[in-house]
């Protein structure tokens, strides 16, 4: 999703990204994702990753948006998002107060399958499919750990990589949201 911002993405990637995580509860209605994505685009906010799915109540979806906040006031993002009629509430999740996960599926070279298994088992991953020279592996972990896992798999030959973008929940003992809007 980093392409959503066109040139903005290029500029940000040239620097070290400053990632913030927002969790938004939105009405599960036609076009809501387009409204959110369109808002980020026209306000010049740079989406790093985005994950959307219905909540336990199918009338609502939960969107986890990771934003590169270079040159952007974090509270502006939350306030502008909150103006969307279909956004019920929005909060920022600080990494130190949150649990985060991301899922990765990858097709990797696996002439030496045991070596691949060695790598991914360190991250709790598993082999979902394999042939003589290739495997599809699945790893679910904190996104920083996934980055590391990805780097370790690269020497085997990383043929296809799909990551989901992170999802996050506030940790059980965390304090109240930093940016609580329209509760």
């Amino acid at each position, binding site marked *: 999703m980093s392409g959503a911002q066109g040139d903005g993405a290029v500029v940000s990637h040239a620097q070290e990204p400053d990632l913030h995580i927002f969790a938004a509860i939105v009405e599960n209605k036609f076009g809501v994702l387009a409204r959110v994505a369109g808002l980020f685009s026209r306000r010049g906010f740079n989406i790093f990753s985005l994950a959307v799915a219905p909540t336990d109540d199918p009338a609502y979806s939960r969107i986890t948006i990771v934003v590169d906040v270079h040159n952007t*006031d974090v509270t502006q993002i939350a306030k502008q998002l909150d103006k969307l009629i279909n956004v019920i509430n929005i909060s920022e999740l600080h990494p130190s107060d949150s649990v985060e996960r991301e899922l990765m599926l990858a097709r990797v070279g696996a002439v030496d399958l045991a070596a691949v298994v060695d790598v991914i088992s360190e991250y709790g991953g598993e082999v979902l499919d394999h042939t003589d020279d290739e495997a599809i592996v699945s790893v679910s972990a904190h996104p920083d750990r996934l980055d590391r896992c990805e780097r370790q798999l690269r020497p085997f030959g990383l043929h296809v990589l799909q990551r989901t973008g992170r999802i996050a929940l506030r940790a059980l003992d965390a304090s109240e949201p930093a940016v609580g809007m329209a509760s």
Partner: protein
Amino acid sequence: MELTGAQALMRSLEMSGVEVMFGLPGGAILPVYDPVLDSPIRHVLVRHEQGAGHMAQGYAHVTGKPGVAMVTSGPAATNIVTPLCDAFMDSIPMVVVTGQVAMSAIGSDAFQECDTTGITMAVTKHNYLVTDAADIPRIVAEAFHIATTGRPGPVLIDLPKDISNEMMTWYWPDGVELPGYRPRSGVDPAAIAEAAALIRTAQRPVIYAGGGLLKARAAEALREFAEMCDIHVVTTLMARGVFPDRHPLCLGMPGMHGNYSAVTAMQQADLLINLGARFDDRVTGNPAHFAPGAKVIHVDIDPAEHGKVRVPDVAIVGDARLAVEALIAALRPADGSDTTAATADRSAWKSTISGWQEQYPLQYDQPSSGHPLKPQYVVEQLRDNTPDDTIVVAGVGQHQMWASQYWKFDYPYTWVNSGGLGTMGFAVPAAIGAKVGQPDRTVWAVDGDGCFQMTAQELISASAENIPVKVAILNNAYLGMVRQWQELFYAERYSEVYLSADHPDYVGWAEAMGCAGIRVESAEEVVPAITKANSIDDRPVVIDFRVDTEEKVYPMVPAGGSNDDIILGPEGDADAVLKGSAPS
């Protein structure tokens, strides 16, 4: 009661209090135009859908009620995107209904299909695609609620043709349920107390009055506040009229073409009390150099405006009228004594301001020969020869700035213009909408020749519907504002700005559209022409004022520059390129 979707839509508009709508029928909206014949709502037939949108805006500006427009799908919907964006930028309450191809055809590139909700997402406060006729009353009720509450804005309802024909059981909702929409109007007492403390101790305070005060119907509260605290007021382009120009505390318009005293008072203030304004770039110039020594109190009903451009010292979220009233209550001494007794000594500041006002008034020079006719002279004569409560409507460009500068606005809701979007062609249709909303008032559009050519055809609508607006074209034969920038910033290399004073023949064109047409070429003809125009009330009037081609708008702050670099008149032209660049 069983109704078609089309009947339910009209009924819902009636239930929402709509008295007049502006529109133009076509294929996808045809079913709705049938019950229009049976509805008590007055429908004004426009000649181009952009006209319908701007008429709805003009109506909303002067009545405070939401403007309503209805057009068909495809090209009609795209034609009304400009008014939607204009209303979004200037926070004008508006509800637009567009026809859409049948549900089964959506996505098939059907005739006159376009993704109207997709296109308008970025220029509406909210929009709807109706997918079930039973939803129509709820959606209409929500649309009016969203358009008129909180920070007002445009809402679009896209109605597929088959949904218009579908039967539904009529109901009208008791209220609206929008869990994600809870505009805040009441203000935080702690923030008010903090603001009051800043106001008491400020030595050089200025009230920065914005359009939000008009939306909040806060003109009286503002006057009480300013008088009680004895603080000068600048009124932004969107707020002209919210505070009387003839009031001794009024400094007039700030910004790129603002009065010296308004611009400089803000620059040198130690406290800006921003009431419903948004630190627009046309007011601040380069924000890094804007009002560098000022603390900021910022009242806005939209919390996203706080810190968007300038970080306030005190942010007050809420309705501007409630905020001002709360400030009055907080600052009024309990013992009934004079408020100013409890505040810092501001006598030096006040005498500095009156010195600026004396030294740097707006100025132009109308030659006694009558030639060339100066546009500012025309505006002044119009001002002095029309009723005090005349509604003035402007397009965008030099004429807009001269109208704003030289008119004396003494009443709120007498000034209608396109501020944020800067839509050329706004004046004629907006004036028509304003006249529909206030039929007993005199409505003058002050327009440019370039602007007039963009939407003049709506005068045919005005003639046909007997809406007698008056139009003063300040015809300088050029796209004058662009010409001014090319003169100052592109070494007088005039690229594609000449329009010709004679083509079109504005008098002949006016008459062909059913209007009276008058041509004025020298200063002595100005007042007789205005008097004649004021006497005509059975059709629109157009006066073609042939004004000086070379007259420029002053003061001027070059873009990117600091407001300290204000250029007061032609003697400063040579410095313009050193101080900044042509505005974007």
